[in-house]
């Protein structure tokens, strides 16, 4: 499914200036869009506004040309799955499998209980992303990386067409960051999902994204294909650092990397 935001603007009540303005982007199925920007540029606000958790003060979100406001919460829940930032403070936590089963909620009636079929599907989803060993562990005992995998499984078990993740790799170690990134790439390539993720790391956007929207505190946001947006000049302006982009040869593949060289004088 194609997800698009047209002229999106958001202003918190009582705030003088909008935190988001002139947001325009689209992302097709089988594509990954990365949202990039410095702290305070409104990345999480954009995530919440574009899937209807906040109401746009101007503009709209569209799924295949249909305005999100014309869909019910339930319809949105079946189409878009949202993965929040994995916080470690979980109280009264469910086991991994129970938590993933919760993801079936948009498909069950209000008084309905998940049956064996639902649990089997939750289990299969966990196994398919390599999180099967977390099924019986209480979420509160999990590490950040483990909990993130459970949250992604919970999102996938809802059988969404669009997956929205808020900083899925933040706070994870080197290994787990790559586990998450490779998984997202696989979902895009094999399950043809539309994936939108929010990230602090330009290198990650460069590595896995097809499209990028670059938010900035001072300027209007820039969006486009990864090669259009991820230029040394644009990144330097937005993050106020000197940036070099280069390709590294690994296993007969050119893997692009980006490094911040120095603060700009």
């Amino acid at each position, binding site marked *: 499914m194609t997800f698009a935001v047209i002229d999106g603007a958001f202003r918190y009540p009582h705030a003088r200036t909008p935190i988001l303005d002139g947001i325009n982007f689209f992302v097709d199925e089988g594509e990954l869009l990365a949202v990039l920007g410095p702290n305070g540029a409104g990345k999480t606000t954009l995530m*919440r506004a574009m*899937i209807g*958790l906040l109401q746009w003060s101007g503009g709209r979100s569209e799924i295949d040309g249909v305005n999100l406001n014309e869909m019910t*919460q*339930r*319809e*949105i*829940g079946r189409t878009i*799955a*949202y993965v*929040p930032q994995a916080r470690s403070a*979980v*109280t*009264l*936590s*469910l*086991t991994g*499998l*129970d938590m993933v089963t*919760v*993801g079936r*909620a*948009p498909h*069950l009636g*209000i*008084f*309905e*209980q*998940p049956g064996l079929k639902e*649990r089997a599907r939750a289990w*299969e989803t966990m*196994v*398919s*992303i*390599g*999180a*099967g*060993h977390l099924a019986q*562990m*209480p*979420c*509160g*005992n*999990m*590490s950040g*990386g*483990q909990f*993130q995998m459970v949250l992604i499984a919970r999102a996938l078990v*809802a*059988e969404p067409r669009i997956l929205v993740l808020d900083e899925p790799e933040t706070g994870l*170690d080197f*290994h*787990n960051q790559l*586990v*998450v990134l490779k*998984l997202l790439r*696989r979902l895009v390539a*094999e*399950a*043809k999902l539309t994936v939108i993720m929010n990230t602090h790391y330009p290198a990650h956007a460069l590595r896995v994204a097809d499209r990028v929207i670059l938010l900035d505190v001072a300027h209007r946001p820039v969006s486009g294909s990864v090669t259009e947006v991820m230029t040394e000049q644009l990144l330097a302006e937005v993050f106020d650092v000197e940036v070099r982009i280069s390709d590294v040869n690994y296993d007969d593949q050119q893997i692009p990397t980006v490094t911040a060289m120095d603060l700009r004088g």
Partner: protein
Amino acid sequence: MRVYAETPPAAPAQSPSRSNSESRSVARSGLTGALVCDGRLRPWFVVVLWLALAGCAAASVLAGRYGVALPQVVTALWEYVGGREFSDPNVGSVLFGVRLPRTVLAIVVGSGLAVAGAAFQSVFSNPLATPDTLGVAAGTSIGAVLALLMEWRLLGVQLLALLFGLIAMAVTAAIARQRGRTSIVMLVLAGVIVSAIANAVISLLKLVADPTSKLPEITYWLMGSMAGVGFDAIALGAPLIVLGSFTVYLLRWRLNVLALSEDEARAAGLNLKVLRPVVIVSATVITASVVSMCGQVGWIGLLVPHCARMLVGNNNRVIIPVSLLLGAIMMLLIDTLARTITASEIPISVLTALLGAPFFIVLLRRTGGNWR
């Protein structure tokens, strides 16, 4: 959607340093695994709970100052069902005037308070949220005391108690909510504040109450007692408790979604604007009905759900039914103790506190304040 299931799974996101937390979880899932299978209670465990409930109910009917034997009870029940005269009028009047109403009341009150506690804990995703800690119990008491002063009937007492309970709930939630989020500590502190205000108002009401008739009545009633509540009063109060408990029971699995953050619950397609108030009002209705029938019965709403958690884990799908049964069992035991261990009856809240507080200390020490 399963396309990606065919590729080899990604490496498990795990490191050796986490083996400690894992061994803890295995130890914990041992008991839970024995009682829960595929997210459901094992049938034998349900049977055991029901048998325990039946046993406690029988003990509650038989125990007391006036000795009644099981055959006498069966005979009297048979005569009652058949619509005949009691062959032993004493047994008949003790059974139907005192014992049975009390047993029924204990079952309804215990299960109701336990479910209300579990519901509050989920809806606020706060292990310490209960009718007592949220100030709801104290709030409902204002309404009930007011109604008692005005000599209203039970229905009026209940409605006024409910009204003040909802007000107290709203005030607590409003104080605790900061920028759209409610922290565990803030909610409990707000509950303490609201309880303090409510208790001050109750003291004020006691001050103006007639010291010869009304004041003792209010004071004794506030301590909690199931004595003197007949079938007529139960017929009025119990349906509301049953209704509230049944609503929460039907929504038990959804409570798992409700316990997530607001964004997650809404993104999962949940209508929070409807579901959250439904659960909160249900739990408040239960509390208000309990308070108007038998005063403040503390601790049950905190202890029973946590007992259930220790037994079957944190999935509300199984916590709610286990809390229902355990709450009834515990209330029956406490009420039977309250009226049999000494010549004069001990107020229930005294016993629940004396038994509940030490248990809670054990619980706190075991979890170390990490409610996982």
